[in-house]
Protein backbone atom coordinates (compact mmCIF):
# COMPACT_ATOMS: atom_id res chain seq x y z
CA UNK A 1 0.00 0.00 0.00
CA UNK A 2 1.53 3.32 -0.99
CA UNK A 3 2.00 5.92 1.72
CA UNK A 4 0.92 9.53 1.48
CA UNK A 5 3.40 12.31 2.12
CA UNK A 6 1.79 14.76 4.56
CA UNK A 7 3.18 18.22 5.27
CA UNK A 8 1.45 20.14 8.01
CA UNK A 9 1.98 22.51 10.91
CA UNK A 10 1.49 21.20 14.45
CA UNK A 11 1.54 23.72 17.29
CA UNK A 12 3.40 26.12 15.03
CA UNK A 13 6.11 23.66 14.01
CA UNK A 14 6.32 22.43 10.42
CA UNK A 15 6.21 18.63 10.33
CA UNK A 16 6.12 15.98 7.63
CA UNK A 17 5.49 12.28 7.74
CA UNK A 18 4.34 9.37 5.62
CA UNK A 19 0.77 8.31 6.37
CA UNK A 20 -1.04 5.13 5.57
CA UNK A 21 -4.14 6.20 3.56
CA UNK A 22 -6.40 4.81 6.31
CA UNK A 23 -4.44 6.36 9.18
CA UNK A 24 -6.37 8.89 11.25
CA UNK A 25 -4.94 12.23 12.30
CA UNK A 26 -5.20 10.96 15.89
CA UNK A 27 -2.99 7.94 15.15
CA UNK A 28 -0.48 10.08 13.26
CA UNK A 29 -0.25 12.57 16.14
CA UNK A 30 0.27 9.84 18.70
CA UNK A 31 2.32 7.25 16.81
CA UNK A 32 4.30 9.27 14.29
CA UNK A 33 4.77 12.61 16.04
CA UNK A 34 4.85 11.26 19.64
CA UNK A 35 2.21 13.80 20.70
CA UNK A 36 0.40 11.49 23.07
CA UNK A 37 -1.50 14.21 24.94
CA UNK A 38 -4.35 13.73 22.47
CA UNK A 39 -6.23 10.64 23.65
CA UNK A 40 -8.27 7.97 22.00
CA UNK A 41 -11.46 7.26 23.92
CA UNK A 42 -14.10 5.87 21.59
CA UNK A 43 -12.52 6.34 18.18
CA UNK A 44 -15.92 7.14 16.73
CA UNK A 45 -16.42 10.84 17.45
CA UNK A 46 -18.61 10.42 20.52
CA UNK A 47 -16.29 11.20 23.44
CA UNK A 48 -14.13 14.16 22.35
CA UNK A 49 -10.95 12.91 24.07
CA UNK A 50 -9.13 13.33 20.74
CA UNK A 51 -10.19 16.98 20.26
CA UNK A 52 -7.74 19.18 18.36
CA UNK A 53 -8.21 22.26 16.21
CA UNK A 54 -7.53 22.22 12.48
CA UNK A 55 -7.23 25.66 10.90
CA UNK A 56 -8.88 26.96 14.08
CA UNK A 57 -11.91 24.63 13.94
CA UNK A 58 -12.51 22.17 16.77
CA UNK A 59 -12.65 18.60 15.46
CA UNK A 60 -12.27 15.02 16.61
CA UNK A 61 -8.90 13.89 15.30
CA UNK A 62 -10.24 10.32 15.16
CA UNK A 63 -12.76 11.42 12.52
CA UNK A 64 -10.16 12.85 10.19
CA UNK A 65 -7.55 11.12 8.08
CA UNK A 66 -3.95 12.19 8.54
CA UNK A 67 -3.87 12.79 4.79
CA UNK A 68 -6.64 15.38 5.20
CA UNK A 69 -4.36 17.44 7.45
CA UNK A 70 -1.98 18.13 4.55
CA UNK A 71 -1.37 21.87 4.34
CA UNK A 72 -3.43 22.55 7.48
CA UNK A 73 -2.60 24.11 10.82
CA UNK A 74 -3.14 21.65 13.68
CA UNK A 75 -3.18 22.67 17.35
CA UNK A 76 -3.07 20.06 20.12
CA UNK A 77 -2.95 20.11 23.91
CA UNK A 78 0.87 20.15 23.75
CA UNK A 79 0.71 23.66 22.27
CA UNK A 80 -1.55 25.08 24.96
CA UNK A 81 0.96 26.07 27.68
CA UNK A 82 3.41 28.74 26.56
CA UNK A 83 5.95 29.97 29.15
CA UNK A 84 3.36 29.26 31.84
CA UNK A 85 0.25 27.12 31.96
CA UNK A 86 -2.78 28.45 30.11
CA UNK A 87 -5.39 29.95 32.48
CA UNK A 88 -7.72 27.04 31.66
CA UNK A 89 -5.04 24.54 32.69
CA UNK A 90 -4.37 26.41 35.92
CA UNK A 91 -8.06 26.68 36.79
CA UNK A 92 -8.62 22.98 36.09
CA UNK A 93 -5.94 22.24 38.69
CA UNK A 94 -7.27 24.80 41.21
CA UNK A 95 -10.84 23.51 40.92
CA UNK A 96 -9.75 19.87 40.73
CA UNK A 97 -11.82 19.68 37.58
CA UNK A 98 -10.53 16.22 36.76
CA UNK A 99 -10.13 12.84 38.33
CA UNK A 100 -8.52 10.27 36.07
CA UNK A 101 -7.56 13.02 33.61
CA UNK A 102 -8.08 11.03 30.42
CA UNK A 103 -10.72 13.41 29.04
CA UNK A 104 -8.91 16.54 30.25
CA UNK A 105 -6.74 17.34 27.20
CA UNK A 106 -9.77 17.18 24.92
CA UNK A 107 -11.86 19.29 27.26
CA UNK A 108 -9.12 21.91 27.57
CA UNK A 109 -8.70 22.13 23.79
CA UNK A 110 -12.47 22.38 23.35
CA UNK A 111 -12.88 24.97 26.12
CA UNK A 112 -10.08 27.09 24.64
CA UNK A 113 -11.85 27.04 21.27
CA UNK A 114 -15.07 28.15 22.99
CA UNK A 115 -13.47 31.07 24.83
CA UNK A 116 -11.81 32.27 21.64
CA UNK A 117 -15.25 32.56 20.03
CA UNK A 118 -17.19 33.57 23.11
CA UNK A 119 -15.16 35.07 25.98
CA UNK A 120 -18.21 35.38 28.26
CA UNK A 121 -20.37 32.27 27.84
CA UNK A 122 -23.30 31.30 30.04
CA UNK A 123 -23.13 28.00 31.91
CA UNK A 124 -25.63 26.63 29.39
CA UNK A 125 -23.44 27.68 26.49
CA UNK A 126 -20.44 25.98 28.09
CA UNK A 127 -22.44 22.81 28.68
CA UNK A 128 -23.72 22.65 25.09
CA UNK A 129 -20.30 23.45 23.62
CA UNK A 130 -18.71 20.67 25.72
CA UNK A 131 -21.55 18.19 25.16
CA UNK A 132 -19.24 16.19 22.91
CA UNK A 133 -16.57 15.82 25.60
CA UNK A 134 -17.47 12.96 27.89
CA UNK A 135 -16.06 12.74 31.41
CA UNK A 136 -16.96 9.61 33.34
CA UNK A 137 -15.48 10.84 36.64
CA UNK A 138 -16.32 14.40 37.59
CA UNK A 139 -20.00 14.88 36.92
CA UNK A 140 -19.03 18.05 34.98
CA UNK A 141 -19.87 20.69 37.60
CA UNK A 142 -16.25 21.35 38.49
CA UNK A 143 -15.33 21.45 34.82
CA UNK A 144 -17.94 24.14 34.16
CA UNK A 145 -16.77 26.14 37.20
CA UNK A 146 -13.13 25.92 36.09
CA UNK A 147 -13.99 27.08 32.56
CA UNK A 148 -16.02 30.00 33.90
CA UNK A 149 -13.29 31.01 36.34
CA UNK A 150 -10.67 30.88 33.58
CA UNK A 151 -12.96 32.89 31.29
CA UNK A 152 -13.38 35.55 33.99
CA UNK A 153 -9.62 35.77 34.50
CA UNK A 154 -8.96 35.95 30.77
CA UNK A 155 -11.53 38.78 30.42
CA UNK A 156 -9.77 40.62 33.22
CA UNK A 157 -6.37 40.16 31.57
CA UNK A 158 -7.79 41.31 28.28
CA UNK A 159 -9.18 44.45 29.90
CA UNK A 160 -5.86 45.04 31.64
CA UNK A 161 -3.99 44.73 28.36
CA UNK A 162 -6.38 47.02 26.48
Amino acid sequence: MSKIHVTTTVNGDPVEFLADPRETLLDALRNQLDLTGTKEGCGTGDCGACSVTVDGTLVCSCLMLAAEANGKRVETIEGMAKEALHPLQRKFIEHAALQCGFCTPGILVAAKALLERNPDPTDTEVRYWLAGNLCRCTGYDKIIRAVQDAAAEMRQEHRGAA
Partner: protein
Amino acid sequence: MRYHTPTSFADAAAIAAGASGTLRFLAGGTDVLVQMRAGMVQPDDLIDLKHIPGVDKIERTAEGGWRIGVAVPGIVLGGHADLVRDWPGVVEGMNLVGSTQVQGRATLAGNLCNGSPAADSVPGLIAAGATVTVTGPNGSRDLPVEQVPAGPGKTNLAKGEVISAITLPPRGKNGGDAYLRFIPRTEMDIAVVGCAVSLRLDGDKVVEARVALGAVAPTVLLSEACARAIIGTTLDDAALGALAKAAEGEAKPISDKRGTKEFRIAVAGVLARRAAKIAYDRAKGLKA
Protein backbone atom coordinates in the same frame (compact mmCIF):
# COMPACT_ATOMS: atom_id res chain seq x y z
CA MET B 1 -7.25 1.73 -0.09
CA ARG B 2 -6.52 4.39 -2.69
CA TYR B 3 -7.04 7.96 -1.48
CA HIS B 4 -7.98 10.30 -4.32
CA THR B 5 -7.99 14.10 -4.29
CA PRO B 6 -9.61 15.18 -7.56
CA THR B 7 -9.87 18.91 -8.28
CA SER B 8 -13.14 18.79 -10.24
CA PHE B 9 -16.44 16.93 -9.90
CA ALA B 10 -16.01 15.61 -13.45
CA ASP B 11 -12.75 13.98 -12.35
CA ALA B 12 -14.36 12.68 -9.15
CA ALA B 13 -17.19 11.14 -11.20
CA ALA B 14 -14.71 9.61 -13.64
CA ILE B 15 -12.71 7.99 -10.82
CA ALA B 16 -15.96 6.72 -9.27
CA ALA B 17 -17.27 5.38 -12.58
CA GLY B 18 -14.02 3.50 -13.19
CA ALA B 19 -13.76 2.02 -9.68
CA SER B 20 -14.41 -1.70 -9.47
CA GLY B 21 -14.45 -2.27 -5.70
CA THR B 22 -16.02 -0.53 -2.71
CA LEU B 23 -16.11 3.23 -3.13
CA ARG B 24 -16.85 6.09 -0.76
CA PHE B 25 -16.84 9.83 -1.21
CA LEU B 26 -15.30 11.83 1.62
CA ALA B 27 -16.66 15.23 2.64
CA GLY B 28 -16.71 15.74 6.43
CA GLY B 29 -16.05 12.05 7.08
CA THR B 30 -18.03 11.89 10.32
CA ASP B 31 -20.00 8.88 9.07
CA VAL B 32 -17.48 7.37 6.66
CA LEU B 33 -14.62 7.19 9.15
CA VAL B 34 -16.85 5.62 11.79
CA GLN B 35 -18.02 3.00 9.28
CA MET B 36 -14.43 2.29 8.24
CA ARG B 37 -13.33 1.88 11.83
CA ALA B 38 -16.23 -0.41 12.63
CA GLY B 39 -15.33 -2.52 9.61
CA MET B 40 -18.78 -1.95 8.10
CA VAL B 41 -17.20 -0.39 5.03
CA GLN B 42 -13.68 -1.04 3.74
CA PRO B 43 -13.31 1.23 0.73
CA ASP B 44 -10.93 0.28 -2.06
CA ASP B 45 -11.23 3.84 -3.31
CA LEU B 46 -11.87 6.89 -1.15
CA ILE B 47 -12.49 10.12 -3.06
CA ASP B 48 -11.86 13.25 -0.99
CA LEU B 49 -14.00 16.05 -2.45
CA LYS B 50 -12.40 18.85 -0.45
CA HIS B 51 -9.76 19.69 -3.05
CA ILE B 52 -12.43 20.75 -5.55
CA PRO B 53 -12.65 24.55 -5.77
CA GLY B 54 -15.86 26.00 -4.31
CA VAL B 55 -16.86 23.08 -2.09
CA ASP B 56 -16.29 25.21 1.03
CA LYS B 57 -18.38 28.16 -0.23
CA ILE B 58 -21.88 29.44 0.53
CA GLU B 59 -22.98 31.72 -2.32
CA ARG B 60 -26.09 33.63 -3.37
CA THR B 61 -27.61 32.29 -6.56
CA ALA B 62 -28.65 34.66 -9.35
CA GLU B 63 -32.28 34.00 -8.35
CA GLY B 64 -31.66 35.02 -4.72
CA GLY B 65 -31.38 31.55 -3.21
CA TRP B 66 -28.27 29.88 -1.85
CA ARG B 67 -25.76 27.48 -3.30
CA ILE B 68 -24.01 25.48 -0.59
CA GLY B 69 -20.80 23.59 -1.29
CA VAL B 70 -20.69 19.92 -0.35
CA ALA B 71 -17.89 20.36 2.19
CA VAL B 72 -19.38 23.28 4.15
CA PRO B 73 -19.54 22.07 7.76
CA GLY B 74 -22.40 22.70 10.16
CA ILE B 75 -20.52 25.25 12.22
CA VAL B 76 -20.03 27.43 9.13
CA LEU B 77 -23.72 27.20 8.20
CA GLY B 78 -24.66 28.21 11.75
CA GLY B 79 -22.30 31.18 11.61
CA HIS B 80 -23.66 32.51 8.31
CA ALA B 81 -26.06 35.25 9.42
CA ASP B 82 -27.73 35.84 6.02
CA LEU B 83 -28.34 32.13 5.44
CA VAL B 84 -29.73 31.74 8.97
CA ARG B 85 -32.06 34.70 8.39
CA ASP B 86 -33.43 33.13 5.20
CA TRP B 87 -33.59 29.46 6.24
CA PRO B 88 -33.38 29.11 10.05
CA GLY B 89 -35.10 25.72 9.93
CA VAL B 90 -32.56 24.25 7.53
CA VAL B 91 -29.65 25.47 9.62
CA GLU B 92 -31.11 24.46 13.00
CA GLY B 93 -31.64 20.93 11.67
CA MET B 94 -28.01 20.62 10.57
CA ASN B 95 -26.76 22.16 13.81
CA LEU B 96 -28.48 19.40 15.82
CA VAL B 97 -26.19 16.79 14.28
CA GLY B 98 -23.61 15.58 16.82
CA SER B 99 -21.26 17.61 18.98
CA THR B 100 -19.33 20.83 18.43
CA GLN B 101 -16.47 18.68 17.14
CA VAL B 102 -18.75 16.87 14.69
CA GLN B 103 -20.21 20.23 13.59
CA GLY B 104 -16.67 21.23 12.65
CA ARG B 105 -16.65 18.54 9.93
CA ALA B 106 -20.14 17.22 9.19
CA THR B 107 -21.91 18.41 6.03
CA LEU B 108 -25.43 18.61 4.59
CA ALA B 109 -24.41 16.50 1.60
CA GLY B 110 -22.93 13.83 3.85
CA ASN B 111 -25.96 13.75 6.14
CA LEU B 112 -28.15 13.31 3.05
CA CYS B 113 -26.00 10.63 1.38
CA ASN B 114 -25.58 8.65 4.60
CA GLY B 115 -29.21 7.80 3.98
CA SER B 116 -30.47 7.71 7.56
CA PRO B 117 -34.24 8.18 7.88
CA ALA B 118 -33.44 10.05 11.11
CA ALA B 119 -30.95 12.48 9.49
CA ASP B 120 -31.64 15.81 11.20
CA SER B 121 -30.74 18.07 8.28
CA VAL B 122 -32.83 16.33 5.65
CA PRO B 123 -36.43 17.25 6.67
CA GLY B 124 -35.49 20.94 6.67
CA LEU B 125 -33.93 20.70 3.20
CA ILE B 126 -37.00 18.89 1.86
CA ALA B 127 -39.45 21.34 3.42
CA ALA B 128 -37.42 24.20 1.97
CA GLY B 129 -37.70 22.72 -1.53
CA ALA B 130 -33.94 22.32 -1.80
CA THR B 131 -32.40 20.60 -4.80
CA VAL B 132 -29.08 18.89 -5.33
CA THR B 133 -26.88 18.93 -8.38
CA VAL B 134 -25.64 15.45 -9.17
CA THR B 135 -22.58 15.08 -11.35
CA GLY B 136 -21.93 11.80 -13.11
CA PRO B 137 -19.79 10.52 -15.95
CA ASN B 138 -22.31 11.89 -18.47
CA GLY B 139 -22.75 15.36 -16.98
CA SER B 140 -24.92 16.92 -14.31
CA ARG B 141 -28.58 16.83 -13.38
CA ASP B 142 -30.62 18.48 -10.67
CA LEU B 143 -33.07 16.64 -8.47
CA PRO B 144 -35.19 17.47 -5.43
CA VAL B 145 -33.65 16.42 -2.12
CA GLU B 146 -36.62 14.13 -1.37
CA GLN B 147 -35.64 11.98 -4.37
CA VAL B 148 -32.13 11.28 -3.06
CA PRO B 149 -32.76 8.80 -0.19
CA ALA B 150 -33.87 5.32 -1.28
CA GLY B 151 -34.01 3.63 2.12
CA PRO B 152 -31.85 3.26 5.21
CA GLY B 153 -28.23 3.72 4.09
CA LYS B 154 -29.18 3.87 0.40
CA THR B 155 -29.54 6.64 -2.17
CA ASN B 156 -30.90 6.82 -5.69
CA LEU B 157 -27.58 8.02 -7.09
CA ALA B 158 -26.17 5.80 -9.83
CA LYS B 159 -22.63 4.44 -9.98
CA GLY B 160 -20.22 7.27 -10.65
CA GLU B 161 -22.65 9.95 -9.51
CA VAL B 162 -21.78 12.42 -6.75
CA ILE B 163 -23.63 15.39 -5.26
CA SER B 164 -21.77 18.49 -6.42
CA ALA B 165 -23.89 21.24 -4.79
CA ILE B 166 -26.99 21.88 -2.73
CA THR B 167 -29.29 24.73 -3.76
CA LEU B 168 -31.87 26.43 -1.59
CA PRO B 169 -34.54 28.44 -3.42
CA PRO B 170 -35.02 32.16 -2.73
CA ARG B 171 -36.79 32.55 0.62
CA GLY B 172 -38.96 35.39 -0.70
CA LYS B 173 -41.30 37.49 1.40
CA ASN B 174 -43.45 36.32 4.32
CA GLY B 175 -41.86 32.90 4.54
CA GLY B 176 -40.65 30.93 7.54
CA ASP B 177 -39.34 27.47 8.33
CA ALA B 178 -38.54 25.42 11.39
CA TYR B 179 -37.27 21.97 12.38
CA LEU B 180 -37.95 20.13 15.62
CA ARG B 181 -36.91 16.68 16.72
CA PHE B 182 -37.68 14.57 19.74
CA ILE B 183 -34.84 12.92 21.65
CA PRO B 184 -34.96 11.73 25.26
CA ARG B 185 -32.17 14.15 26.26
CA THR B 186 -31.10 17.61 25.16
CA GLU B 187 -28.08 16.95 22.96
CA MET B 188 -26.00 14.30 21.18
CA ASP B 189 -28.70 11.85 20.20
CA ILE B 190 -30.50 10.52 17.14
CA ALA B 191 -34.01 11.73 16.33
CA VAL B 192 -36.86 9.52 17.51
CA VAL B 193 -39.06 11.69 15.28
CA GLY B 194 -38.23 14.88 13.36
CA CYS B 195 -40.45 17.35 11.57
CA ALA B 196 -39.73 20.37 9.38
CA VAL B 197 -42.28 22.89 8.13
CA SER B 198 -41.74 25.66 5.62
CA LEU B 199 -44.61 27.99 4.75
CA ARG B 200 -45.50 31.30 3.20
CA LEU B 201 -48.18 33.71 4.34
CA ASP B 202 -50.43 36.21 2.62
CA GLY B 203 -51.57 38.35 5.51
CA ASP B 204 -52.52 35.83 8.20
CA LYS B 205 -53.28 33.04 5.77
CA VAL B 206 -50.94 30.19 4.83
CA VAL B 207 -50.67 30.14 1.04
CA GLU B 208 -47.80 27.70 0.57
CA ALA B 209 -46.57 24.92 2.81
CA ARG B 210 -44.23 21.95 2.73
CA VAL B 211 -44.02 19.51 5.63
CA ALA B 212 -41.38 16.79 6.00
CA LEU B 213 -41.30 14.02 8.61
CA GLY B 214 -38.14 12.19 9.70
CA ALA B 215 -37.58 8.84 11.43
CA VAL B 216 -41.12 7.59 10.84
CA ALA B 217 -40.53 5.68 7.57
CA PRO B 218 -37.61 4.13 5.62
CA THR B 219 -36.88 7.57 4.15
CA VAL B 220 -37.69 11.13 5.21
CA LEU B 221 -41.22 11.82 3.96
CA LEU B 222 -42.58 14.88 2.17
CA SER B 223 -46.23 14.95 3.21
CA GLU B 224 -48.82 16.41 0.84
CA ALA B 225 -51.58 15.64 3.34
CA CYS B 226 -49.88 17.72 6.04
CA ALA B 227 -49.41 20.64 3.66
CA ARG B 228 -53.07 20.46 2.57
CA ALA B 229 -54.16 20.56 6.21
CA ILE B 230 -52.75 24.05 6.72
CA ILE B 231 -52.83 25.73 3.28
CA GLY B 232 -55.67 28.26 3.17
CA THR B 233 -55.90 28.48 6.97
CA THR B 234 -54.66 31.01 9.52
CA LEU B 235 -53.08 28.09 11.43
CA ASP B 236 -55.87 28.23 13.98
CA ASP B 237 -56.58 25.37 16.39
CA ALA B 238 -58.69 23.52 13.82
CA ALA B 239 -55.87 23.69 11.25
CA LEU B 240 -53.27 22.58 13.80
CA GLY B 241 -55.52 19.69 14.79
CA ALA B 242 -55.91 18.67 11.15
CA LEU B 243 -52.14 18.95 10.67
CA ALA B 244 -51.45 16.72 13.67
CA LYS B 245 -53.95 14.14 12.42
CA ALA B 246 -52.40 14.22 8.94
CA ALA B 247 -48.90 13.77 10.37
CA GLU B 248 -50.08 10.82 12.48
CA GLY B 249 -51.66 9.33 9.37
CA GLU B 250 -48.49 9.70 7.30
CA ALA B 251 -46.15 8.26 9.91
CA LYS B 252 -45.32 4.60 9.22
CA PRO B 253 -42.63 4.01 11.83
CA ILE B 254 -41.12 0.87 13.29
CA SER B 255 -40.68 0.16 16.98
CA ASP B 256 -37.07 0.08 18.10
CA LYS B 257 -34.94 0.90 21.14
CA ARG B 258 -35.50 4.63 20.58
CA GLY B 259 -39.27 4.53 20.57
CA THR B 260 -42.33 2.45 19.87
CA LYS B 261 -44.42 2.75 16.76
CA GLU B 262 -47.35 4.21 18.75
CA PHE B 263 -45.14 6.77 20.49
CA ARG B 264 -43.56 7.90 17.23
CA ILE B 265 -46.96 8.36 15.58
CA ALA B 266 -48.17 10.50 18.49
CA VAL B 267 -44.96 12.55 18.54
CA ALA B 268 -45.13 13.15 14.78
CA GLY B 269 -48.43 14.97 15.33
CA VAL B 270 -47.09 16.99 18.25
CA LEU B 271 -43.92 18.07 16.45
CA ALA B 272 -45.81 18.98 13.28
CA ARG B 273 -48.06 21.34 15.27
CA ARG B 274 -45.15 22.94 17.11
CA ALA B 275 -42.88 23.28 14.06
CA ALA B 276 -45.73 24.82 12.06
CA LYS B 277 -46.32 27.42 14.77
CA ILE B 278 -42.64 28.36 14.89
CA ALA B 279 -42.49 28.59 11.08
CA TYR B 280 -45.64 30.74 11.14
CA ASP B 281 -44.21 33.08 13.76
CA ARG B 282 -40.98 33.35 11.80
CA ALA B 283 -42.93 34.16 8.64
CA LYS B 284 -44.64 36.91 10.63
CA GLY B 285 -41.24 38.15 11.78
CA LEU B 286 -42.23 37.46 15.39
CA LYS B 287 -39.15 35.55 16.45
CA ALA B 288 -35.75 34.65 15.16
